[in-house]
Structure formats: structure tokens, C-alpha cells
């Protein structure tokens, strides 16, 4: 997912974690890099500004309409039952 040669080794590491469209949580990036969450947040925000990564806001049940929230819950439920 890296474009060009700019960016430090942190950028490279994060880009590799997200390679091939894999979605990673900020918490997971921070844990794997052994960085405080706040630091990881800043690095990822910089990368997003440069277009190196896409940031997806988590789906929030608070923001969703009832129909969307219910559909999401049903997907989670059937997914858990399949595990």
C-alpha cells in the first residue's frame, strides 16, 4: 500500500499490516508496534492525509438507524453461531 519512498519505518510497517486490503484496528497496530495508542493514532492520521491508508470509522450502533443496527446485530449473531 506504500506509494513513493517517503515515510519512516513505522509507515512501512503499518502499510505492510494493511497490505492487500486487510483491515486493522488502531488498537492492534499500536499493540503490535508496541506504541502508545495516541502515538499510533497520529502516525495513522498522517498516513491517511498522504493517502497511504484509508481509515474507516467503526460502525456505531449509536449513529445507525434501528434497521441498520438490527441488521448488523443479526450478522454478528449468525457469525458467532457459525464459529
Amino acid at each position, binding site marked *: *500500500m506504500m506509494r513513493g519512498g517517503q515515510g519512516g519505518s513505522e509507515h512501512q510497517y503499518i502499510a505492510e499490516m*494493511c497490505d492487500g*486490503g*486487510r*483491515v486493522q*484496528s488502531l*488498537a*492492534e497496530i*499500536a*499493540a*503490535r508496534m508496541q506504541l*502508545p*495508542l*495516541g502515538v499510533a493514532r497520529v502516525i495513522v492520521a498522517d498516513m*491517511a492525509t498522504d*493517502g*497511504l*491508508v*484509508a481509515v*474507516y470509522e*467503526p*460502525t*456505531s*450502533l*449509536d*449513529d445507525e438507524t*434501528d434497521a441498520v*443496527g*438490527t441488521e*448488523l*446485530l*443479526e*450478522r*454478528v*449473531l449468525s*457469525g*458467532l*453461531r457459525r*464459529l
Partner: protein
Amino acid sequence: MSHRPSAGRVTSAKIVIAGGFGVGKTTLVGSVSEITPLTTEAIMTSAGVGVDDNRQGPGKMTTTVAMDFGRISIDRDLILYLFGTPGQTRFWFMWDELVRGAIGAVVMVDTRRLADCFAAIDFFEHRRLPYLIAINCFDGMQYHNAQDVRDALAISSDVPVVSCDARNRESTKNVLISLVEYVLTMRRTRAVAPA
């Protein structure tokens, strides 16, 4: 934002795992997560928190807060995250961010130390986040039955109280299923009869 996953929008959902120190939060996350539970640390500047010893000086102090999390890929486009809350109650200000947008919470209970979970229950009641009580049966032993626990915790009769063995994947899975079923039931009831 040119690097979108090919399968369209990926969504995530989260469930919060709470309970007292040593009640088995990390174990529960680990038994069902597809990754080894990771610990992330947030460095907090704790000036004004007022609990830590401040005699070292008037300056700000930093404290490290650890929280565990795990991941379950529900399907290609949906990831469920499990977040264990920091055990130390003085870090509760972090919980606001943790619970935002969460499906609900599992409050883990050790019946030998029931009071450890009171604060978590108060917090979720206050935030109106649906939760259930999961009695972690250490060594397969359950020292109190569900009704005793319900009475002792003075929780509403519709809050599910389940028993589990946090080490067991199937058992943990069933706890999560019970929580999501409960949240769905609450939403449907609300839709039928708006308060």
C-alpha cells in the same frame, strides 16, 4: 483514500468485557479471539486524577494503562472486536471511548468477590449500554446460583445472568451469543412499544 478493500465497506463492531481485576477478562478474550489477545498501552497524563501519589512533585505524571483486545472475523466485511476494560477503577475516564458505539458489555463476575463488579454495572447502567452478567466458574465450580447473584447485584430482572468457563471457547461463544440476542430482543421490544 484510493486504497479501498475490494469487497466494499468493511464494518466493525465491538463488545466490551468488564469486571474486576483477575476475574478472567483476558482469558475470556483469548478463548474466542482469532489472534492472541494483544495488550495496548495508552500513556495517560494523570495530573488531576487525584488518586496517585503526587508527592514526587507538582509536575504532571504519566501512567500506563493496559487494555486487552481480541478479534473475530464474522465474515469478509465484518470484524468483531472484544475489548477488555482496564481493571483499575481510576482509569474509568477511558471507558467512555471504549463503550462508544459498542454492541454491549459482558460483566464478568467472580462470586467470591462479587463487589468487584459493582462499579462496572453502575457505569453501564448510567451509560445505558446493554450488558449481561457472566459468572466465571473457576475450576468448574459455581459457588452461587444465578438468582442469588441477581439478588445480590440488585439488577433488573431482564438482565441476563449466565454462567461460563472463560477458558472454554464454546462457553465464551455462548456468552457473546446471549449478549447479542439480548440486545436484539431489547431493540425489537423498543420498536414495538416505544417508551
